């Protein structure tokens, strides 16, 4: 080795970090590690940070539904389980599900409002019609990477199928099993192809995008009740406006807040902090004569798809 190289290392500096004193290095690393440590807490912290105000809807500025004096409606649904027997007495698939499928041309096997049969703590079952819970702290809106699913000023959660990229993180995030994906080409009747698509009226359906119950905002805005509310033979579903504190099932009108409070209303999976807009009044169909120990209901059907040639359903 040339004599000058045998001397101090500075004369031929190693090209990698030997020039940084080890102690300073370890100190830097330590600080770096400290800054990384709080990251384990971030999931909890960040999940609570939802969008503080309703997101601007993706389909352009839209006038929200308002009361006479310009206050924005806050749509809500109240489902009186004392009157729901899963349409056992009707003898067919649940009418709310059937009407929604028909009205929205929901592809098979989507049940935007699905009647679950819940086991009660003290034996027996009850039927729980479950539409999208229209959460006020919606996990689906929080995680969507492109803002395809968004909260409206009325408090509903809608999906813009023109923006959805089909990543399905919203489906992983929804704790109520209320989102459905168009895995294949959804059946579209010829009339629907000409329909004016809007996030409030998800027709025609698009392959590779997510769909769900939208609370029928276009109908509510026009003063009509949603399909499920109209179809229920026992008038178990109430649709209302929390801003005007009013709700109706098509037959009677109630003051929503009093109706909820006096009947010990609850919400599904309250502990998750999603703040749903769908309330339930506890019961098991006793008001319409159902015995709590009669299980089972007819499965949903999609008769409208028969008019479309080559409609290929997929499994749930």
């Amino acid at each position: 080795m040339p004599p000058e190289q045998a001397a101090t290392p500075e004369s031929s500096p190693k090209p990698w970090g030997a020039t940084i004193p080890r102690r300073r290095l370890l100190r830097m690393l330590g600080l770096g590690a400290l800054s990384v440590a709080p990251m384990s807490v971030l999931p909890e912290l960040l999940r609570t940070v939802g969008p503080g105000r309703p997101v601007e809807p993706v389909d352009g500025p839209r006038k929200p539904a308002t009361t006479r004096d310009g206050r924005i409606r806050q749509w809500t649904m109240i489902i009186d389980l004392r009157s729901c027997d899963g349409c056992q007495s009707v003898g067919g698939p649940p009418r709310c599900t059937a009407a929604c499928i028909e009205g929205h041309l929901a592809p098979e096997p989507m049940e935007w409002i699905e009647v679950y049969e819940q086991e009660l703590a003290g034996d027996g079952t009850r039927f729980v019609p479950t539409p999208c819970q229209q959460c006020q702290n919606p996990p689906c809106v929080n995680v969507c990477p492109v803002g395809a699913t968004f909260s409206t000023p009325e408090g509903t959660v809608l999906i813009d199928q023109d923006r959805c990229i089909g990543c399905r993180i919203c489906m992983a995030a929804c704790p109520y099993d209320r989102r459905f994906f168009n895995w294949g080409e959804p059946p579209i009747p010829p009339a629907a192809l000409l329909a004016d698509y809007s996030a409030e009226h998800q027709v025609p359906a698009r392959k590779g995008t997510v769909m769900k119950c939208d609370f029928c905002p276009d109908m509510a805005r026009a003063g009509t009740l949603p399909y499920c509310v109209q179809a229920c033979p026992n008038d178990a579903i109430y649709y209302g406006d929390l801003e005007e504190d009013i709700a109706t099932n098509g037959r009677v009108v109630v003051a929503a807040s009093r109706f909820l409070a006096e009947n010990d209303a609850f919400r599904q999976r309250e502990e998750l902090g999603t703040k749903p807009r769908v309330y339930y009044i506890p019961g098991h169909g006793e008001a319409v004569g159902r015995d709590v120990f009669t299980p089972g209901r007819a499965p949903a059907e999609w008769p409208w798809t028969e008019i479309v040639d080559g409609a290929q359903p997929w499994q749930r």
Partner: protein
Amino acid sequence: MNATIRQTVRAALVLVAVGALTVALAAPAVASHVTVRTSMPSAGAVGEIIPLAIDLHTPDGAPLSGTTVTYYLHMSFAGVEGHAVIGRAVTDDAGVAALRYEPRTTGLHQVRMEYLAPGATTIESVVATFDVAGGTQLVRSAGGVDIPGINPGLLMVVLGGVWLILLRVSFRLVAIARAGGADVPPEGDGPR
């Protein structure tokens, strides 16, 4: 004697009839003698709590206390009309029951107050109206918790910092490229 008996019987019958009539009319007559006065606010706005007062007195002016009054408001929504219970109030010692109600719609409100007076068998009601002006939005939903500082801006700052450092590294590469012309050590092939 026949005339006397006939007169007595006639008088007795009249008395009985009058008595029966009196008794017949007595019950409702007693109730219909409850003096009802309602006091509706002259001006109210959405979101403002207004008292809907009703005053019950017996015919002889004594206040009717301890009577439960149920308030029904006429509402209409999505083409369905009806009366919905909005609250209950009990008359106090002065015979006044006042429900503190927060109106949520604008326009003319028709409220029906029903009560069962003590001793009465049928529920009576009285209807009153009041007007409500518009107000501000009452229900606002805020999703989640807002922690100052933890927001996307922080993420952008951190990310910007990292990419700045990468940029500085690229400047070093430019320096290497530029130093390529300088001071080349003597060409010496073979074993290095």
